[in-house]
């Protein structure tokens, strides 16, 4: 192919689709490559999309996009071998659903996104794995697939977590397993009505449930359960480095997770229809690669732009916002016909002005603090024991709650350690 494109986008996930859409809408000549047979074929997640990014890009997405359910109920559970403690957040729900969580399944959702990219005027080519970047004197000038070369003024790498091309381009020096979490998940089919009855949701309402505690056997991470229209997404997310150090397998942890009474009750009678796995870059700012260099920009997971605070895990909205910022940078660069590294510096400025790099900075200590294993093995048990002792009635005269809590904390944690953990955790979420 001899035609030169204004921009080539590698990857048809949220980052790539958002960037291709914005560039195509502004009149740029855009080509997007996706290695799956269709966009979404390789992508899995929890998951729910948070924030207004979708609406900003696609004002009609509520009518058009394949949204499974809107998150109207969010639960956080501490799991222990003895039982669980759950916080159940369910705002009174009236009027149109808020932007705070749209549950989607990636195989359908990303396919829809890619269709929007085509409608915006970009060319989307699926079943194409970009093998390499074309370089000319240190400047990226296009991509190579097999023997074919495609040239462009700019390349946006939205290739997701493994960042193979970003590494080849020298933007990233490699990743450590301590900065990665592995997610494994089953999609479990259940009738719509059963889901609504079991989860106490109606119509398009849905539940997002997070679990920490014994389900990861002391490995940083947690379990999750999301309601789709006619299935549940049930999975485990665990730090890869600690997982293998402890000689544990995520697939075993998932099986155990499904047997916890809290979970077993909800998935009962369901039929597993798919099993998938994916990594999440959770090292935060410290693992962020170089975001751009002459002719190339990195967006989304490939740039490690994911926020995991222990209470929330957001990546898709960061991916979209960074994709948009990369697109805007390329649009400006095209006007000046300057794709040098200096010209692309705008990208970082845009990310700093928006929430992407600000959030990454606000939570820059979080990845380190989340490695405190007491969060996963000790504290869930402490919470449970305190409540157990308060609620138990053994016929003897009662003790005040604060005294019970004091005693459990003293024997299980120690006040000094609790205080130091709490002091550290103030920076965490």
């Amino acid at each position, binding site marked *: 192919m001899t035609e030169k494109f204004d921009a080539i986008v590698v990857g048809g996930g949220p980052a790539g689709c958002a960037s291709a859409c914005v560039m195509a809408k502004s009149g740029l000549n855009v080509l997007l490559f996706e290695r799956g047979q269709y966009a979404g*074929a390789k992508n899995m997640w929890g998951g729910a999309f948070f924030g207004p990014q979708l609406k900003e890009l696609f004002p009609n997405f509520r009518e058009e996009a394949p949204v499974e359910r809107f998150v109207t109920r969010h639960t956080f559970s501490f799991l222990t071998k003895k039982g669980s403690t759950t916080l159940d957040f369910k705002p009174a729900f009236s009027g149109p659903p808020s932007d705070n969580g749209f549950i989607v399944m990636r195989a359908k959702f990303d396919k829809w996104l890619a269709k929007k990219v085509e409608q915006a005027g970009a060319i989307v080519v699926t079943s194409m794995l970009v093998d390499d970047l074309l370089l000319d004197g240190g400047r990226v000038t296009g991509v190579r697939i097999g023997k074919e070369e495609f040239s462009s003024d700019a390349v946006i790498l939205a290739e997701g977590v493994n960042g193979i091309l970003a590494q080849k381009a020298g933007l990233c020096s490699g990743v*450590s397993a301590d900065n990665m979490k592995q997610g494994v998940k089953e999609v479990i089919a259940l009738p719509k009505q059963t889901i609504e009855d079991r989860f106490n949701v109606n119509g398009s309402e849905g539940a997002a449930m997070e679990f920490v505690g014994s389900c990861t056997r002391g490995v940083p991470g947690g379990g999750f359960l999301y309601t789709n229209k006619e299935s549940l997404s049930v999975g485990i997310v665990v730090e890869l480095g600690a997982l*293998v150090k402890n000689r544990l397998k995520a697939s075993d942890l998932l099986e155990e997770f499904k047997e916890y009474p809290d979970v077993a009750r909800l998935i009962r009678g369901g039929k597993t229809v798919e099993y998938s796995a994916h990594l999440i870059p959770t090292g935060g700012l410290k693992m962020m690669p170089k975001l751009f260099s002459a002719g190339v920009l990195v967006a989304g997971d490939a740039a490690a732009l994911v926020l995991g605070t222990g209470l929330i895990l957001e990546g898709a909205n960061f991916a979209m916002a960074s994709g948009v910022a990369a697109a805007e940078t390329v649009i400006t660069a095209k006007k000046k016909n300057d794709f040098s590294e200096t010209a692309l510096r705008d990208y970082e400025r845009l990310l700093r002005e928006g929430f992407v790099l600000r959030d990454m900075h606000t939570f820059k200590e979080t990845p380190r603090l989340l490695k405190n294993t007491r969060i996963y093995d000790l504290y869930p048990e402490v919470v449970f024991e305190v409540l157990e002792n308060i609620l138990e009635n053994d016929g003897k005269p009662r003790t005040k709650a604060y005294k019970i809590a004091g005693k459990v904390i003293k024997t299980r944690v120690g006040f000094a350690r609790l205080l130091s953990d709490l002091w550290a955790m103030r920076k965490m979420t």
Partner: protein
Amino acid sequence: MKVEEKLALNKYAPATQAHITVNKGLCADCDLRPCVYGCPADCFILKEDHVSFSYEGCLECGSCRIICPKGALQWAYPQGGFGICLQYG
């Protein structure tokens, strides 16, 4: 439910060529064999004296690439269009 049974539910476009290859010579001095634990699809199986690898059930997560301490893996995604084809995701 066994991993094997779960993988059987997935849809794949099977490639005839392996996208990941193992330099088995390097595995000989690998004591911890993290790939055996880190692979969510049980592609690496610990046999009596070695680790056997099969690429067919691979979920393309990239974990083995990161955790192999010996650099024994030649790792790539399958050729475009091949490999796992998620129906739900």
